[in-house]
């Protein structure tokens, strides 16, 4: 009985994980491959989310994962991320990091440390038209020159569940 239950539990766990994994790693959602880059010592991972609030000023959220592979501090300046948005017709428009408290500036990533940040993007009025967001990493650290850009498809607004009449 026990192995069968164990298998059932494992299958349920895997099936619960599957939709999430698909959403995250569906290769159609990214240009230039998965949104992970190694910049010198620093592993960077990016993903885009959309604010859940269904308001007119809802925007996109950029999730950044950081990990320092080295046993020394590393310079990192996420304020020098250059972002641009593109709509269906290929037209580009500027996108910036929302930083009302001016917190995002050059810092030192501690040795062997990992971290995450969730940053709101200022996409402007063209949020619904924005199809992709591209990140140019070339200036975020002295080792980043020549780093391949990361392009992410912007998630579309989720439909609100209809209220029962």
């Amino acid at each position, binding site marked *: 009985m026990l192995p069968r239950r164990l298998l059932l539990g494992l299958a349920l766990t895997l099936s619960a994980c599957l939709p999430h994994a698909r959403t995250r790693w569906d290769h159609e959602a990214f240009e230039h491959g998965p949104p992970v880059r190694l910049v010198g010592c620093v592993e960077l991972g990016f993903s885009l989310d959309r604010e859940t609030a269904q308001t007119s000023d809802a925007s996109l959220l950029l999730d950044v994962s950081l990990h320092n592979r080295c046993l020394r501090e590393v310079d990192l300046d996420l304020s020098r991320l250059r972002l641009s948005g593109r709509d269906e017709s290929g037209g580009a428009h500027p996108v910036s990091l929302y930083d009302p408290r001016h917190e995002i500036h050059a*810092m030192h990533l*501690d040795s*062997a440390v990992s971290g995450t*940040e969730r940053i709101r993007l200022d996409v402007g009025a063209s949020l619904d038209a924005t199809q992709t967001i591209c990140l140019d990493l070339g200036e975020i650290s002295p080792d980043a020159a020549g780093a391949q850009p990361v392009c992410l498809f912007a998630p579309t607004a989720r439909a609100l569940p209809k209220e029962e009449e």
Partner: protein
Amino acid sequence: MKRLSAFVVALACLVAVPRLAHARGCTEVSDIVGYEKCHRFGDGWAVERSVPLALALQLPYVTFDPSGYDFDANRGKKDPTLTFPGSSLGAPITAMGFGARIEGFYLGPLYTGVSFGMGFGHEHFAPVTVGGSTLSPSDELVNTTIVWGGALLGVRVPLGWVSLRLEALFGGTSLSISQHSSLGDFTSTAGHGLIEPHVFFDVWTTPNMTLGAYAGANVFDTKERTAGLVLEWHGRAFDGQYSFW
């Protein structure tokens, strides 16, 4: 035993107070930069946001050499104090216990801090005759208590996953012993200043945690020795430097 209870209560407060403060102080409202109430960009990964402090728990073995110091023996607060020379107790008295250290690494490999602790033991020291009474060692489980504390000044030599430290403790130590006599129970106490150089060896078990061992002796009386194990959490990975090469 009163001192032991007081120390345990103090330790419980040390553990509980930060949790209470956090519970009352700040409730996070968002995980988005700019909207966060309790955190700032860089918390958890940026050197600029870390505090170069280290907090440690010690398991020390300590020795107190009673010779050369006068002990004050008290039975009650109103009773007169009896005095006897520590040399009559015989050999140095030892104890094991626990302690704490707080260090700040603000100047590269140099650090300063404080260290304090208590040791407990059961010793069969010699009976002492004073004021016509003979004070014999108490049969209590703990009949000797050594308390110490002071300021630390040291240097850490980073050698990769291990590090060597040379430091000195500038402070004081005191010994309390429990004795009994036909007049009742006595507590005898003596204390003195201390300059205690230590040799310290650390192994980094994670970038922010070390397991260390140390040994040292009082420069004024090398019969007073100490050694111990230390588990230490460091606010900055490798205290800011993994190795000096």
